């Protein structure tokens, strides 16, 4: 209990610093231009250092840079023309991206401004003082010897109760009592599991909580997101059916209330997936579906492209923004680096998991809006609320390569500076010769 009070106190003290939600900064892919919203709040200047392109020169767009490069030339750049120095812009951008780049950054943990006494967030370790090392040592002892055993016990209790409870409820025939009991069991188990992670969750705007027959959409940082959201309401989970321990949990959960588990082969067939989800949503008494449209875990500093599949199902979308406080523990699951078990162990040996969850007002697809636009609209709303960077890059870039179209975009932009806005036509050589 003492620990809880301490966590609550420190979060309230520290969170007064950033009480207002920060405005969204969108990054146009392929350039380094930041697009500010028209209604920036006063909180922006202090967060600027965290959310702008870190370490990147304030060089501005391609046009600006090229203009500077060509300033010494007598002709104006509006006439077009190539200069030998044009390539410097591309060299520099290329080298900058070799040294660091925005997208790869998102797939590794966020760097903290000041150290929080966890070795794992300590990237450039400098020995500062004996006192700090002693404090850190104390921290290790507390975390591993005191907190960790407590948390493991709670987690085991929580999970086993989930399996047992849902199986028991599954035996009941009656519909209403069954639903009520299943909700009770689910909530209880998730709450125990959340305590097992020392998760302190604050829910905002509870009046916008997802209703039955809707689709709940959230940004994805780790598998713990499910526990966080399910602490406050019951959702129907969507996902791949696994084997082993996860499979046991999944199968028992399905007994008490309908979730949507897919076989791996079914996942490939998008139509089958969509129709099953649609059927689930159409039955108005079913719990709201929980979907993470990014498709992969991102490190909670930005929101990446939403896959449009979830937005084609129809129904009302309830967006939810989840933001972890990185000072107490790093919740991001870097699936390339850690497997599930070591990830959970790391979670249980952090200080705490402090989360803010914002329920956003429900959205529906408007007339004439296609799924992609709708997805982007929802994404911007979530990024805006959570104070995350709204990126148009695809989360699957973690594993795949980028599309050719982006390269063509760069070439197009550059060519409009060299030959002007005219497309390729036979008049070109004539007009160029008249310039001389």
């Amino acid at each position, binding site marked *: 209990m003492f620990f809880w009070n301490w966590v609550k106190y420190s979060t309230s003290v520290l969170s007064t610093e950033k009480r207002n939600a920060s405005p969204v900064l969108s990054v146009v892919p392929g350039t380094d231009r930041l697009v500010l919203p028209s209604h920036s709040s006063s909180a922006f200047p202090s967060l600027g250092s965290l959310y702008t392109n870190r370490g990147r020169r304030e060089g501005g767009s391609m046009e600006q840079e090229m203009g500077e490069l060509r300033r010494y030339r007598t002709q104006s750049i509006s006439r077009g023309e190539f200069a*030998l120095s044009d390539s410097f812009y591309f060299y520099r951008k290329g080298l900058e991206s*070799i040294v*660091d780049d925005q997208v790869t950054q998102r797939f590794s943990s966020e760097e903290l401004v000041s150290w929080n006494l966890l070795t794992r967030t300590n990237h450039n370790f400098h020995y500062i003082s004996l006192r700090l090392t002693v404090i850190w040592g104390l921290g290790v002892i507390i975390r591993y010897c005191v907190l960790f055993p407590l948390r493991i016990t709670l987690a085991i209790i929580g999970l086993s109760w989930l399996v047992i409870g849902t199986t028991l409820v599954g035996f009941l025939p009656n519909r209403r009592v069954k639903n009520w009991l299943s909700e009770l069991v689910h909530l209880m188990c998730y709450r125990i599991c959340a305590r097992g992670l020392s998760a302190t969750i604050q829910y905002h705007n509870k009046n916008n909580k997802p209703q039955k027959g809707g689709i709940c959409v959230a940004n994805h940082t780790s598998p713990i997101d499910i526990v966080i959201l399910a602490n406050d309401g019951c959702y129907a989970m969507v996902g791949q059916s696994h084997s082993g321990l996860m499979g046991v949990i999944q199968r028992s959960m399905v007994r008490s209330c309908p979730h949507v588990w897919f076989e791996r082969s079914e996942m490939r067939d998008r139509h089958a997936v969509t129709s099953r989800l649609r059927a689930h949503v159409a039955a108005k008494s079913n719990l709201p579906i929980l979907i993470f449209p990014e498709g992969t875990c991102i490190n909670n500093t930005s929101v990446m492209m939403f896959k449009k599949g979830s937005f084609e199902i129809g129904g009302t979308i309830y967006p939810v923004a989840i933001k972890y406080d990185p000072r107490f523990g790093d919740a991001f699951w870097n699936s390339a680096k850690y497997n599930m078990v070591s990830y959970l162990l790391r979670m249980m040996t952090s200080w705490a998991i402090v989360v803010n969850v914002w329920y956003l007002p429900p959205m529906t697809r408007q007339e004439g809006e296609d799924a992609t636009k709708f997805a982007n609209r929802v994404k911007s709303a979530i990024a805006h609320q959570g104070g995350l960077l709204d990126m148009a890059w695809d989360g699957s870039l973690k594993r795949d390569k980028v599309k050719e179209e982006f390269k063509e975009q760069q070439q197009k932009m550059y060519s409009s500076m060299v030959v002007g806005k005219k497309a390729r036509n036979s008049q*070109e050589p004539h007009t160029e010769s008249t310039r001389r």
Partner: protein
Amino acid sequence: MGSTNSTLSKIPNVEELVQETGFTPAHIVRLYDRFEALDKEKTGHLRPQDFGAINRLAINPIGDRIIGAFFSPGQETVDFHSFVRILAHFRPADKKRPKDPSMPEPVNSRTSKLKFAFQLYDQDKDGKISRAELLQVLRSMLEMQVTEEQLESIADRTIQEADLDTDDAISFEEFRKSLEKVNIDHKMSIRFLR
């Protein structure tokens, strides 16, 4: 990630690198972390594919050329030392250094930067940018957006402007002259630490 000291000890010949390139040990540790992050298979060397995995670089019109600059002719891998040496060209110039004619030209001086840029154009390393080489660069930067005639006329014009000894190619001196007013240090430098 470990302490600076332990990472530094993993890198052989650090003092030599520091002397040669002018990077501080902190910079070198950062670059080493980046090198390791790019070297996904932990071979200790980078291959062209490892660079190709960087998305921003993949959409850069002359990305392939930049990658090529890291690999000496005939070599298929680049080790950490060469990696750092190439990146050192883009370090901002040290303004306070006294001009010492007996010391070799520092790797990030204006001349060295220009030489590096020149080499990116002059792929066959004959000391001149021929018309064909210029056309190649133009083609990568503009690709589908302009016609072949437009490309050729742009190349012709550029050579005409810069070529002073009328040998239909741009030598390093001519290159340097045509860019003498450009603030090279500003345009060809990147910040290495966040």
